[in-house]
């Protein structure tokens, strides 16, 4: 990212080598969708209407209409306190809304308990990982499986009735662990894993039930860059399999890198929707969230040379002068 680019210009996304089919299909589907908040999608898997959540006098969520495209990777971004996690909690049954209805795959999920939401194919992960520390990695994984009759009290007492299924899901779990590169840690307590590894474990565990939709709450938070690449790869692989992904993130590179659609929330409302490039060029979004120099990699030491600093200063002066001129005209001085 060079500092020569004029402010507001978003460079074209670097073409990256992924299997083209999944992304291309989704991009084609969404090509003709308008870039307005609450716009309907050609094949919506989640449709939410008038969802609000009030806490005392404060409104945490006030979403008029939201549709999530099936098979796409949708990013939910916005400043802290915008209501993203609250919306997550509402949609997945972990919280009760003040008003609103929503449906998943055409079936209404409003008022449905969290466990039933998960069973119907919509699983979620948590911002603060909930890897069960005092259980081993493989036990965590096996817990995520479905249709294990041994989980019934009476069937549990007769091992022959559930041993076969146990073998099946153990194989499935081990495959997933290999895929997520956690197989070496199979019999270790989850509490002994690093933070990033626990994130991977939670994601792998969520996949055990072969869900239709995966909701990831800040999957990259606190994860080192190498692991981030790996996680990105896993999320894209999900799209290839046809799984819908909705995730909350703050890392814009990531969002731009893999998401097909971006929904921006601020103060509980949806303020913008669209493909990543367009949304990030939206002035309102920039002002509210992204910041003027969001393009600039502030960790880049090259910026610390005098030339760049002078240029940035000059830009700031120009902005202030322009803003002052505006104020004068409107008589608000």
């Amino acid at each position, binding site marked *: 990212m060079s500092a020569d680019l004029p402010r507001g210009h978003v460079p074209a996304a670097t073409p990256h080598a992924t299997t083209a089919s999944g992304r291309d299909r989704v991009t084609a589907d969404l090509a003709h969708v308008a870039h307005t908040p609450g716009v309907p999608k050609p094949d919506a898997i989640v449709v939410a209407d008038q969802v609000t959540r009030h806490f005392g006098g404060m409104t945490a969520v006030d979403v008029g209409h939201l549709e999530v495209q099936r098979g796409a990777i949708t990013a939910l971004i916005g400043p802290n306190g915008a209501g993203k996690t609250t919306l997550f909690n509402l949609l*997945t049954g*972990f919280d009760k809304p003040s008003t609103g209805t929503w449906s998943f795959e055409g079936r209404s999920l409003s008022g449905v*308990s*969290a*466990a*039933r939401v*998960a*069973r119907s194919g919509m*699983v*979620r*992960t*948590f911002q603060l990982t*909930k*890897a*069960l*520390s*005092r*259980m081993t990695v493989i*036990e965590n994984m*096996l*817990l*995520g499986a*479905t249709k*294990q009759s*041994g*989980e*019934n*009290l009476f*069937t*549990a*007492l007769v*091992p022959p009735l*559930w041993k076969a299924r*146990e073998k099946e899901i153990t194989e499935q779990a081990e495959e997933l662990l290999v895929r997520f590169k956690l197989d070496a840690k199979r019999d270790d*307590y989850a509490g002994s894993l690093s933070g990033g590894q626990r994130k991977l474990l939670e994601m792998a*565990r*969520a996949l*055990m*039930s072969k869900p239709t939709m995966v909701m990831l709450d800040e999957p990259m938070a606190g994860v080192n860059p190498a692991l981030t690449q790996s996680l990105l790869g896993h999320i894209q692989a999900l799209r290839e399999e046809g799984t819908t992904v909705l995730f909350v993130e703050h890392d814009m590179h990531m969002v731009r890198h893999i998401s097909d659609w971006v929904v921006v929330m601020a103060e509980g409302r949806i303020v913008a929707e669209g493909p990543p490039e367009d949304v990030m060029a939206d002035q309102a979004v920039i002002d509210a969230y992204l910041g003027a120099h969001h393009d600039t990699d502030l960790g880049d030491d090259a910026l610390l040379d005098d030339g760049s600093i002078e240029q940035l200063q000059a830009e700031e002066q120009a902005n202030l002068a322009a803003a002052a001129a505006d104020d004068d005209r409107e008589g608000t001085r």
Partner: protein
Amino acid sequence: MDWSRILVNVAGEIFAPTTAAYALAAIGLNVHFGLTGLLNFGQAGFMLLGAYGFAISTIAGWPLWAAVLVAIACAAAFGLLLGIPTLKLRGDYLAIVTIAAAEIVRLVGRSTALTELTGASSGLRGNSYKDTFQDASPFPDGTFALGPFEYAMNASNSWWVRIVGWSVVALACLLVWLLIRSPWGRVLKGIREDEDAVRSLGKNVYSYKMQALVLGGVIGAVAGIIYVLPRAVQPDSMGRPMTFFIWTILLLGGAATVFGPVLGSIIFWVSLMLIKSVMRAGVPESIMRTEQIEQFGWIIVGVTLMLLVIFRPQGILGDKKELAIDVR
């Protein structure tokens, strides 16, 4: 000091029916707290209900198996009643409600209003409900001596109640062992650690907690039957102190293990008997009277519980890595 007599008494505690009853009650509590993390402080209430259910049915003339079923049904109903409001609440609240509920059972049972049914504060006399159990014994009446241990064969504090009691304990251990290793046990383990995580994986947490509550309670009811078979049903002796002893036994042996409750019960009663016998023989009446020795024993139990929880909460057999205590 008559050491041989003391040792015989102490050794007798190892397989005494009271030891078996407490071991069974602790196994039930283990299902509640060790496996699921439920803070049930009313286990004595389940035991008392089981005892009443069994005794009252037997007095009414019902056969042995029916009376046992009544006891189990009472405990299951009580568990359901307790669980409905409380399983959605935080652990502390469950503790308070279970203590209150067990106390209500005791207060209602000892109330003069129910004298016809429960015998009020005097309770139900032993001989009124022991006959079906004693008749079921394949052994002839009379006494039987095995080495230095001599008890009646079938009556009250008998060999028969010992055999039955410890067989039930063994069965319960087998049950718990099977459950711990099963997927059902795995779900409970997850619930113990983090309910929301388990919910997000599609398991109906409330239903599992209820199952654990009822199962542990039913085991407690059977423990109550075994407890009262050698004695009488006295509500005042099955109150809060009994619950706290069961907790001490569970924590001593090790929660969430299969044999922890059994080991804990044996060590508990053997140690108490040892301390009390030695003191009764060794300490002159002028310093400590007989009943004061009893109370001294209970003081030691209280202090032991405190030290146990502070310094070795996993107990003897427990695994510190899997420790569940300060989860909630």
